[in-house]
């Protein structure tokens, strides 16, 4: 349902952030995008959701298709209307609004009140913890709660594909597990596709069917999660090897990555 071919993004008219990224997400699929810092993962998601413009970024080449339609000419709100939603890195909830108003703000214009309540109940069902904070400004919620709210807010737009940028960042092990669990539940119950950017590769590969590896703005490897997990490079650089890492004896210099698939 989502297809990127050869997408190139330039920031500030001069800085090439990704070059020739191609990837695909199928209906109901769960796909992960892995890669080190600054590889261009967030940039890829922003190019899909149309959020590059405010950062002076621009898709200079390639095409992005969603549900068979080329969405590049569309602005971000229109893409959300088509069922494509992006939960941004760093949560970015509306800090001065209550959680309830956060959810309300994301509900589409002109939708019925009944549907609104239904969606809201669904979100509170997934994240019962949010119900306790009816009166507090969302900006004062803890990191994990904000993350839940951000996902819940995205769900209010009734998406067909949800893109999550590092949802586990800064969360406690229990919450990571909880949130991944909920994402899986959402994926299964609503047949919603998921495109997930994660640093926590071990958790992500457990959980998706398919994954892409990005380095330096290029896709260097892609395949079934199961297959990737067995790859020696992935093992060494993303999963910390087969055994527990001995942090006290980490090598200072390492061999180059080769990405032999």
């Amino acid at each position, binding site marked *: 349902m989502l297809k990127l071919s050869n997408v190139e993004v330039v920031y500030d008219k001069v800085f090439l952030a990704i070059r020739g990224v191609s990837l695909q997400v199928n209906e109901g699929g769960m796909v992960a995008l892995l890669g080190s810092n600054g590889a261009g993962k967030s940039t890829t998601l922003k190019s899909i959701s149309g959020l590059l413009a405010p950062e002076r970024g621009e898709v200079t080449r390639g095409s992005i298709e969603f549900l068979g339609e080329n969405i590049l000419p569309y602005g971000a709100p229109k893409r959300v209307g088509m069922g494509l939603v992006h939960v941004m890195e760093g949560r970015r909830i509306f800090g001065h609004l209550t959680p309830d108003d956060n959810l309300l703000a994301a509900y589409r214009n002109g939708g019925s009140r009944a549907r609104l309540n239904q969606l809201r109940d669904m979100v509170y069902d997934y994240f019962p913890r949010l119900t306790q904070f009816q009166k507090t400004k969302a900006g004062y919620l803890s990191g994990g709660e904000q993350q839940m709210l951000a996902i819940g807010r995205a769900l209010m737009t009734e998406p067909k594909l949800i893109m999550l940028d590092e949802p586990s960042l800064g969360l406690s092990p229990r919450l990571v597990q909880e949130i991944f669990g909920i994402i899986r539940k959402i994926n299964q119950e609503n047949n919603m596709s998921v495109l997930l950017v994660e640093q926590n590769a071990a958790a992500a590969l457990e959980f998706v069917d398919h994954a892409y590896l990005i380095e330096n703005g290029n896709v260097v490897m892609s395949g079934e999660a199961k297959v990737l997990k067995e790859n020696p490079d992935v093992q060494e650089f993303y999963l910390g090897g087969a055994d527990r*890492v001995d942090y006290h004896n980490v090598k200072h210099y390492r061999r180059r990555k080769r990405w032999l698939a």
Partner: protein
Amino acid sequence: MSLTSTLTSTAPNNEVVLACHNISRWFGGLHAVKHVTMEIRKGETLGLVGPNGSGKTTTVNAITGFFPPQEGEILYMGRPIQKMRPHEIAQQGIARTFQNVALFKGMSVLDNILLGRHNFMKPSVLRAMLYWWSAQKEEVSNRYKVEEIIDLLQLEDVRDEMVDVVPLGTQKRVELARALVAEPQFLILDEPMAGMNQEEKEYMVRFILDAKEALGLTILLIEHHMDVVTAICDRLVVLNNGEKIKEGQPLEAISDPTVVAAYIGRVDNAAA
């Protein structure tokens, strides 16, 4: 550099570097930190863990003077510091990094790190005016220390980049460098490894261990990556809802049932 050769003992001894006695902090009606007491001894790495919103960052903010505790006492090297302002506390030799990277966006990596030398420089307009006769010497002499740390943390190639364009992982390293050039005795790290993949995590751990070894640091570490915490901390303090619920050896602490229920979730999460 010859940093690694000036080895200091990393074995904990009995000298208490920092002691919090019964500190509390409210935000409006919210009791974010409840009567927390803890001690950190010289050369030790203490892990501070707990669920999100349990008050870890607030505790650190209390120690560093941003949100002074409304109750209780904080002693650094035996002296009370809870009434001092943040910069005065920094001048005592306490350095920290922030959970959400707090670098100065308008500056290059080098300038950011140079700022860490603030306490060793005498900034003044008059000196700036007389640059060639006065400030230049200071700039250059402090530069040597900065270069040492840049070397230690392997930041050579991004030295002249603007700090907001380098990747997040590197930014965290720059922030660590900025804290280290201040030559602190006590270092607080607030989630230095959030948002890093395995490889970067390993590097970061290496840097922290190297720095600790080279500079003889005492470290307070907040981190959600249990594998790291168990590997490098000497002791753990576990907070939940602002209260200290457990203190002890890392592996023992995180397998405590209350800790597992509140924080870890499943036992095998502890490994990840």
